[in-house]
């Protein structure tokens, strides 16, 4: 399944890009003659029949080569690795922070769901999840960078992670931005998962045996609640990655998002294909890992699988 989905993505991407545009026009300037335009197309190899281009592209992929950028001739694979220096820490830190926000907030909102502040907590998380991530970014820049000068308004050290302090400082505001939105989203899931557990028979049964609320929750609730949460977390991690890609533009961070957007603008097929294939593989892989992890934790899922019933992993 995983490979099939990937192969499908590769093919669709390849065809769509070529239908939508001609990379030569991103390179020429006003004044170029037909002969020059044709020569540039030959140089890029886009004048060949599309099936021929596709075959050589597949050949490349099989040898784990993502090709060279049409516009700047940098190796796309190397470039993706370089950009991950920004995007990966940004995604992971944002995800971590969003979990740190979401778990207590969601749990508290569920636990105190009958009180006014419990309702207020869930209302705030509703609101947080509804705001576009770039808008949060713009507001935070207005206040914390332009206003209070606490953080830079954007950019990333040219020395990358040579000075980890400076790199982390540059990422602070983007991380907070993504975590506010992603954390609010996640808090709602945590809240409903917790509510679900709190109403379960087994919890009452456990308390009836004399366990305290906390022990009962820890022994039975967490283990039961964490299984559906894993697939939510996997999806959330993918969403955080996409959020990172968007927020890179607001904060002028040279990550994968920037590579993708500039690639689209310059019709740089190899770069666009490279970034999107990488993201596709990442999302598919996360889903797969979540599946495996769930089965490790909950034996019932393994049984249901052997009984040939599909588990709805990405609910």
């Amino acid at each position, binding site marked *: 399944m995983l490979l099939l989905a990937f192969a499908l993505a590769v093919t669709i991407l390849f065809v769509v890009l070529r239908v939508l545009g*001609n990379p030569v026009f*991103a390179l020429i300037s006003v004044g170029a003659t037909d002969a*020059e335009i044709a020569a540039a197309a030959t140089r890029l190899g886009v004048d060949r029949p599309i099936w021929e281009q596709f075959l050589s592209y597949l050949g490349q992929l099989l040898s784990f080569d993502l090709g060279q950028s049409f516009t700047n001739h940098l190796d796309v694979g190397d470039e993706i690795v370089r950009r991950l220096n920004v995007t990966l820490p940004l995604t992971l830190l944002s995800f971590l922070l969003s979990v740190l926000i979401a778990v207590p907030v969601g749990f508290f909102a569920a636990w105190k769901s009958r009180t006014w502040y419990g309702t207020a907590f869930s209302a705030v998380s509703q609101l947080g999840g509804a705001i576009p991530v770039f808008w949060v970014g713009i507001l935070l820049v207005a206040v914390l960078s332009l206003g*209070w000068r606490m953080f830079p*308004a954007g950019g990333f050290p040219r020395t990358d992670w040579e000075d980890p302090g400076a790199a982390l400082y540059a990422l602070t505001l983007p991380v907070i931005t993504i975590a506010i939105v992603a954390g609010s989203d996640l808090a709602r899931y945590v809240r409903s998962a917790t509510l679900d557990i709190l109403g379960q028979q087994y919890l009452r049964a456990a308390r009836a045996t004399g366990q305290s609320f906390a022990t009962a929750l820890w022994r039975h609730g967490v283990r039961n609640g964490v299984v559906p949460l894993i697939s939510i977390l996997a999806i959330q991690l993918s969403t955080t990655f996409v959020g990172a890609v968007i927020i890179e533009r607001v904060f002028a961070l040279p990550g994968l998002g920037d590579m993708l957007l500039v690639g689209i603008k310059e019709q740089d097929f190899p770069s666009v294909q490279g970034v999107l294939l990488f993201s596709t593989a990442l999302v598919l892989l996360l889903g797969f890992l979540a599946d495996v992890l769930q089965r490790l934790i909950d034996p019932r899922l393994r049984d249901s699988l052997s009984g040939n019933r599909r588990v709805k992993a990405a609910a």
Partner: protein
Amino acid sequence: MTSRRLTRLLTASAAASAGLLVLSGCAAGDTSTSGSGAPDPAAEIVIGSQNEPTNLDQIFGGSSGVTEVFTGNVYEGLFRITDDAEVEPLLATETEVSDDGLVYTFTLADAAFHSGDPLTADDVKYSLERFVGEDSIAARKRQLSVIDSVDVVDDNTVAVTLTQPSISFTYNLGYVWIVNDEAGELTTSADGTGPYALADYRKGDSITLEVNEDYWGDAPANGGVVYQYYADPTALNNALLTGAVDLVTSQSNPDSLTEFEAAGFQIIEGTSTTKELLAFNDRIEPFSNVNVRKAVYSAIDREKLLDAIWDGRGELIGSMVPPSEPWYLDLADNNPYDPELSAQLLADAGYADGFAFTIDTPDSGVHSTVAEFLKSELAKVGITVDINIITDDEWYQKVYNDKNFEATLQGHVNDRDINFYGNPDFYWGYDNADVQTWLAASEAASSVEEQTELIAQANQQISDDAASIWLYLNPQLRIAAEGVTGVPQNGLNSLFYVYDITKA
């Protein structure tokens, strides 16, 4: 979501954002500025720009961004074009021209590339041939196509033979980089003779230039330069406001100028060579009719447009030649704003009830705002405009390549763009035999006076014919922090020499 819930949500988010903005407003007063004092010769200048080069080579899709960074800074030509559009010798210390104007013999400066390789006649031969070669899609290739052959006389001397005299030859050479013939792939690396060497290239982020300690000329006034690129104009402005960059090469949004002025920044205004054009497809009806073109021209209040777009900065022009050029004519009133005249011209052309046409409008820059303005102006004389927004790539495909359009908006950036009117196959299809003859003859003229005379004639004619509508000339706006000096003012064709820039 019910509409009541939606309303509540929107009210809440509006209140939240208003609160945050008030907070930021309160705190915005304490702008810290760099202390003024003596310029620091070791200071690294950080330049913010939106014009990131697609790659580092001028002959392969080298956009104007590549000129901004490299020409004159990392690479040098045989000649230098000054900020006032004068030609000065650079790597060609001496020039001899044969009596028939066909053979140019250049004596080369005693310079060396950053790699240490000395500059020789072979490098010049290689560079010129590369520039006009088959693979080259350099923007100025055509102007250099008069080169017939390049011959190495000795290590220090090179002779260039032309197919016909070209009075702008040395000027055009000012844009051609002399590269090392052993440099290899120049799309990702560089080896020039300039005052700076390429230190670091981070695509999507920055280009760092370090001072070339062995430079053959005068040492730069600063300790190196970083070009920091921003895809988003707001991000660029924020970087300037927070001191992350020292200056921006071009400000495309005049709305923010008052904010910068109030915060103590310098606004540097020079003349540009970028003309905003409403170009017709002169091949097709009704634009094949000169009266229709003139009618459209006279229906547009360009002064109001310039005010709206550039807050009164910039200039009105009436033809393709900007005032910074020697053969400029003041033609701003040649096709005056006069709705009555416009209606009369339309009636004469047989379109008393007006007509409808589509403007293909690139989605970049100010074009879509300009298109809206034109639409409302032309509606007043009964002409209906449809606006069709397209991407820059679509523009090249549909308008430039296929010539499948009625009218389009475009900013033409270069100085001597008037030559496009001498080519009937150009996208706008203006075809006037006299203009073609004059422009061709102007290039082969034996003196600058003769050249000026011929171009002026062509200039007057295309304006009389309203070949296109020259809406206005963009201002060249740069913004620099306090204490920054030596910023080039005009920046002809994106030239941007950084060696005189200092900061305290």
